[in-house]
């Protein structure tokens, strides 16, 4: 009986010994302040063509085999992979991230990630953001935001889209991430990091 009790007491002290140092370290490490909260460094690591259907476009005048007629363009599923480095000596929460995607100099899509994730002190997490670029959507976006630029270049919108959709498996043109911003939180403080990047580099 006595031996058992001694073993139990020892276990308890071992247990304490295991957790108390963490407690002590936790109190000694500097917590987040406005002054020491550094903006994380976000780097576009790569862009992947996740799913690919080639290039095609059907206008609403074309009768479909099944379903409703409409203006449909080939979808293109891209993924943007980011390294997010936390330079702080404490963990931080990434609250949201958003950016604009441009093919060459034309803005084509705006993507975001609303899922939160923790980044440990001094570590680097990775984030994959998917972007669906369908032919019809991209046509409208291209015309409405880049119409005048296309006109100046003397290039038709469909020709431009076809060039991109055909060339994307080999990344035959630069894909840029721009106007990026991500919101980070630590102990009630907020820090916004700006980022941009181009692939291929």
């Amino acid at each position: 009986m006595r031996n058992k009790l001694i073993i139990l007491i020892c276990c308890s002290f071992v247990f304490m010994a295991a957790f108390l140092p963490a407690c002590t370290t936790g109190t000694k490490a500097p917590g987040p302040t406005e002054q020491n909260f550094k903006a994380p460094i976000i780097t576009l690591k790569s862009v992947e063509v996740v799913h690919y259907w080639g290039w095609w476009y059907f206008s609403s005048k074309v009768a479909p085999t099944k379903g409703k007629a409409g203006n449909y363009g080939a979808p293109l599923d891209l993924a943007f992979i980011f390294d997010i480095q936390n330079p702080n000596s404490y963990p931080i929460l990434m609250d949201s991230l958003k950016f604009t995607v441009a093919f060459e100099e034309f803005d084509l899509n705006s993507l975001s990630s609303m899922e939160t994730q923790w980044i440990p002190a001094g570590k680097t997490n990775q984030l994959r953001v998917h972007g669906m670029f369908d032919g019809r959507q991209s046509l409208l976006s291209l015309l409405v935001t880049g119409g005048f630029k296309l006109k100046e270049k003397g290039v038709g919108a469909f020709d431009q889209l076809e060039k991109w959709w055909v060339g994307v498996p080999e990344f035959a043109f630069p894909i840029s991430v721009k106007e990026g911003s991500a919101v980070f939180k630590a102990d009630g403080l907020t820090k916004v990091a700006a980022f941009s990047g181009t692939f291929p580099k």
Partner: protein
Amino acid sequence: MKSKILLFLMSLALIAGIFSIYACGEKPEEKEKAKVVAEVIKVGSLNDMTGATSDVGKDYALGIAEAIHYINETGGINGKQIKLFQFDYGYRIPEALTKYNLFKQLKCVAILGWGTGDTEALAPTVARDKMPYVSASYSGHLCDTAKTPYNLFFATDYSTQVRGLITAWFDKKWAKHPENGQRKPRIAACYMFASAFSSASIKAYKDQAEILGFEVGLDQDVSLFAIDTKSQILALKEFKPDVVLHTNTVMSVAATLRDAYALKLGADHIIKNWGYDENLPKLAGPAAEGAIGCAPWAFFGLDVPLMDKVVEYAKKYNPGIPLENRTIHTVQAWASALGLAEALKRADKAGDLSGESILKNGFETMKNFEIGLGIAPVTFLSTDHRSQSEAKIYEWKDGKFNLFAEVDLKERWPDKWANEWLGW
């Protein structure tokens, strides 16, 4: 006795061990999580950042997110934080309907919506679900509470804008025209026929033109994606309009103004709010000189209450976007978000954040409510969701937007305002 002492020591050790885990071992993640899971109010936001209206929609979407950050950082909704679920639906109505279902699944209490087509398509559903829906569509169709009780917006509705534009031009420009008194003024309109947004105020335009005695020319179908409108301008030249109304967004309005200028149409241009922003002079160049437009809010950066916060949060949350690229659409997004926040605060104070309470204890208790941002005071009645009757009209001249006229339609035509014009 020894056993009892040992037992006592063991208990002490165990308590200390447990304490070390629970008291000292609280991790930052847990602390932050505790904050995150503190009471939140979920709000959905449907935006067009990539579709047919992305020339104006992206800036609006940025403004919504920035305004929600501001609200959360300045006390939230009586201490509760707003969790914003913001999606780009690319101006596709089927996707808007799908996202609406997602918002319900996420238990959003209200929605900040976007376009006319999807807002009008969703109106019966939001009424059935009692889901307050603050849109960036200012269609007059959404103001009649008998038909669309849960639709609201913080702006002058499109029909009132168009009536105000025509009236202001008639009062100030036609009054000085050399042929005034010798013939009727001539007016025509350029817009995308197939777009619910562009055509939302056409009935009101024709009615107002008739009231003021205009000769109305054939409408010209100008796509929202048009970059060449020469055929439409040539058709207009045969009619010789004195003034042309534009109800598209800014890119196609700029294209039309450029072609009108190049082909010497010789008409004035009056433009609904979405076609009239800081990008118009950049895109249309000298063709924008003298363009008249309706702007219910202050242009980005002007000295009006709360604009300092709009600029501060634009810098803080989107540091990668130069301020010179921000527009009035950011400001109007703030008006929508702040208006919704005020309704949520009032409903929350009443102890009920249901859709019906947000409408009745929130929006419909606003009487001459001042948001700031240059927008006229807001009033919502249970019978009438036209939040204001005043159209603020500007003229682009000598490199800046100058206040041209303020037309209060309710004051000028009280009977028509009260008995005829609601809901169209």
